[in-house]
């Protein structure tokens, strides 16, 4: 019989206050197969680990159980210690008597009895544990980055600079994302395009980065280190290999398409480049608006193109790429003004959103940086900014804080004041949140020196009266209601995930949270990884985020990828499912329950096998298997049976 050693941790008073650790140790000593028991105040400390190592050797232990905190925290610590002392790491188990016992109970007697039972179940499990070897998986050292905004660009550059290949996929025809639309950036007021375009150019020219713009992810299969990605390359109807980007076609195109880049404040042709600094600077034809595609006549662009780059016959292409890691950096959208009924639902003139105001402020925008209201082009003299338009409103819109609006609204008011000196900006807010370096100072300056009036209260209604857009709000600081007959109203609409995120996460098999943003593996300690190995996240696709935070997260995600690629092989946990080929009936119920696509039908053997690289050891197939053919290593049916018996106090 195995000689099992048990080490009971006090965790200071975290465990010892509620659980009588001495009694747990005494009772554990009486259990079958237990050869040695010791308690200690901090088992995870260096002396604690040394104790474990020494006793494994001295007492000739075959397996150890550490009764302490959750295995999420210190399983790897103690398995490493056990391995140092010559044990197979899978002969070390954790009995969680903290999170699942001392922390959640107050009755010392009952908690102690429960702790004894927890240790007892682990003794049963450990007795039948096999010694396992980690599964070795090779790695394709090439990354896929989805989304070409500042997050995707930064992550791609960092990975590429470290010598690994990157495929950067962007849905639009140019990289740049929302940052390319911005005028100036808080809190330093440097020009957004001036700091972004060098990075766009660098990404476009980097020998290790393959840009795939105007492309979308079709399908993803495989597993960490070995993904296969199918990418749809949408037809631009322009031969980009010969197009020089001269722009003649765009000048001549008679169609009128509302510019998404300019938030529909302007139009462009059906053949267009979204903005002058686009990377790559090549046009695409939007089929839905192209007069030729709609009526069969026109082809004006084709006539003016001297090199004959226009090709109406082009079709979408599909390419397959092998990559080892995937970073999702698909960014954000904002709640449409049309969704906000009390703010006019988009029907009241001169009510625009923050991104549209960015375009009005931008030197490369439709008004060349002059603030003019959309309805009649007049320069607004009274301008109202409405914060939390759809944010922090769990009853009707979004429950969360959109985080960036306090700062960008202050920036908007400031830039407006710099352009229209005699104008008066008002900002309605609920709270002002300035939790970033230099942010509070930026806000103080706006309030103290720039004459911006901050009004504490949520706006209730916006309506048109003559040529004025009237805002009804309140100022809770004076206890008075406020009415402002404004010339222009700017809504800081809620930051939301992209509509396309939901579809993409299904293809990638990664998770989103309740608000549709991508979920990280741990909110504090694993903020850039997904739960599924090999997937990483960066930027506002994870939640509202400003530029510095986005860039930091992108670099962090890149760093994780680089660290993955720095190894030649991956070691996977072997405590996963396996199949007894003699018992498997080939019913395939396991395939339907596996969330990781790790079960495959073997036509030849007529059984369902386990793809060891994909299996995460969740146990779904084990539970579903009718004939007991599928078992989990070190968590077999017989182990579970004896654990249940022990937990019920039986033998």
């Amino acid at each position, binding site marked *: 019989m195995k000689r099992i050693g048990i080490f009971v941790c006090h965790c200071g008073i975290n465990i010892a206050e509620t659980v009588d650790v001495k009694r747990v140790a005494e009772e554990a000593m009486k259990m079958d197969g237990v050869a040695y028991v010791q308690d200690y105040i901090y088992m995870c400390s260096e002396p604690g680990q040394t104790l474990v190592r020494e006793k494994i050797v001295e007492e000739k232990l075959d397996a150890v159980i550490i009764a302490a905190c959750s295995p999420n925290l210190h399983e790897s610590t103690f398995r490493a210690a056990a391995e140092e002392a010559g044990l197979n790491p899978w002969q070390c188990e954790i009995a969680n008597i903290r999170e699942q016992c001392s922390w959640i109970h107050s009755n010392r007697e009952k908690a102690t009895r429960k702790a004894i039972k927890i240790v007892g179940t682990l003794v049963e499990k450990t007795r039948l544990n096999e010694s396992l070897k980690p599964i070795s998986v090779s790695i394709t050292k090439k990354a896929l980055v989805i989304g070409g905004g500042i997050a995707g660009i930064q992550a791609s550059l960092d990975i590429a600079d470290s010598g690994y290949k990157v495929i950067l996929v962007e849905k639009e025809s140019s990289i740049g994302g929302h940052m390319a639309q911005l005028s100036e950036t808080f809190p330093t007021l440097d020009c957004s395009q001036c700091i972004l375009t060098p990075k766009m150019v660098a990404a476009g020219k980097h020998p290790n980065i393959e840009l795939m713009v105007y492309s979308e992810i079709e399908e993803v299969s495989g597993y960490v280190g070995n993904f296969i990605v199918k990418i749809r390359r949408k037809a631009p109807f322009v031969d980009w290999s010969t197009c020089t980007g001269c722009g003649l076609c765009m000048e001549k195109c008679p169609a009128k398409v509302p510019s998404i880049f300019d938030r529909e404040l302007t139009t462009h042709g059906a053949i267009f480049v979204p903005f002058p600094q686009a990377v790559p600077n090549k046009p695409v034809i939007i089929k839905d608006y192209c007069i030729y595609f709609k009526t069969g006549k026109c082809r004006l662009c084709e006539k003016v193109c001297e090199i004959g780059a226009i090709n109406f016959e082009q079709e979408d292409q599909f390419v397959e790429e092998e990559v080892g890691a995937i970073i999702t950096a698909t960014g954000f959208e904002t709640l449409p003004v049309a969704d906000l009924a009390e703010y006019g639902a988009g029907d009241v003139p001169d009510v625009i959103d923050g991104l549209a105001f960015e375009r009005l402020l931008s030197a490369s925008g439709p008004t060349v940086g002059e603030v003019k209201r959309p309805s009649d082009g007049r320069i607004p003299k009274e301008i109202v900014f409405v914060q939390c338009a759809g944010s922090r409103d769990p009853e009707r819109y979004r429950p969360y804080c959109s985080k960036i609006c306090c700062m960008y609204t202050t920036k908007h008011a400031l830039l407006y004041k710099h352009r229209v000196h005699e*104008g008066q900006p008002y900002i309605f807010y609920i709270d002002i949140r300035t939790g970033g370096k230099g942010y509070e100072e930026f806000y103080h300056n706006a309030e103290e020196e720039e*004459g911006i009036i901050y009004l504490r209260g949520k706006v209730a209604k916006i309506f048109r009266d003559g040529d004025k857009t009237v805002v009804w709000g309140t100022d809770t600081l004076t206890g008075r209601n406020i009415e402002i007959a404004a010339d222009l109203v700017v809504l800081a609409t809620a930051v939301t995930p992209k509509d396309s995120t939901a579809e993409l996460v299904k293809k990638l098999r990664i998770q989103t949270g309740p608000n549709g943003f991508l979920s990280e593996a741990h909110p504090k300690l694993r903020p850039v990884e997904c739960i599924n190995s090999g997937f990483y996240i960066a930027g506002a696709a994870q939640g509202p985020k400003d530029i510095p935070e986005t860039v930091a997260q992108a670099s962090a995600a890149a760093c994780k990828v680089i660290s993955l690629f720095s190894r030649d092989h991956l070691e996977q946990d072997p405590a996963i499912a396996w199949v007894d080929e003699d018992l498997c009936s080939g019913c395939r119920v396991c395939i339907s329950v596996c969330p990781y696509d790790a079960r495959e039908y073997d036509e030849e053997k007529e059984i369902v096998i386990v793809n060891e690289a994909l299996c995460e050891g969740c146990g779904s197939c084990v539970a579903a298997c009718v004939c007991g053919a599928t078992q989990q290593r070190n968590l077999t049916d017989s182990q579970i049976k004896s654990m249940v018996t022990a937990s019920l106090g039986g033998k």
Partner: protein
Amino acid sequence: MSENLGLATPRNPPVRLTRDMVNNGFKLRVNELSGQNTDACYQCGNCSSGCPLAQEMDILPNRIIRLVQLGQREDIIQSETLWICASCFQCTVRCPKGIDIQAVMDALRQIALEEGVDHFGPDQIDPEQAAEVPQPGLVGVYRKLST
């Protein structure tokens, strides 16, 4: 709207804020007389919470500053607060933004006194009491509270 309907004047009508009202010169005058930037106030309320006479005031000191920011001259001029303020400097000492609130109160009193209304005079004090108050004190009060 209420006038048309023949109803009574609303007790708490909305403030119709305009840039003229915000920049009507009242705030600038207060700032000039006091040497302070009232826009620096971020309404933490520390002046009010430490004020030993706050319980006697109709408008708390922080709200007085807020009304200055919005150019609400009439509300302030009619407030009792200006005359209850003892000029003890508690508010000035406590202000995290370094605004000399006592100086702002002085400026507001000066503006109110320009209206020519005395807020204290020899007839408002009992002669027996007056006899006990030191003369410089009485002169100080007259100077502060009358034209």
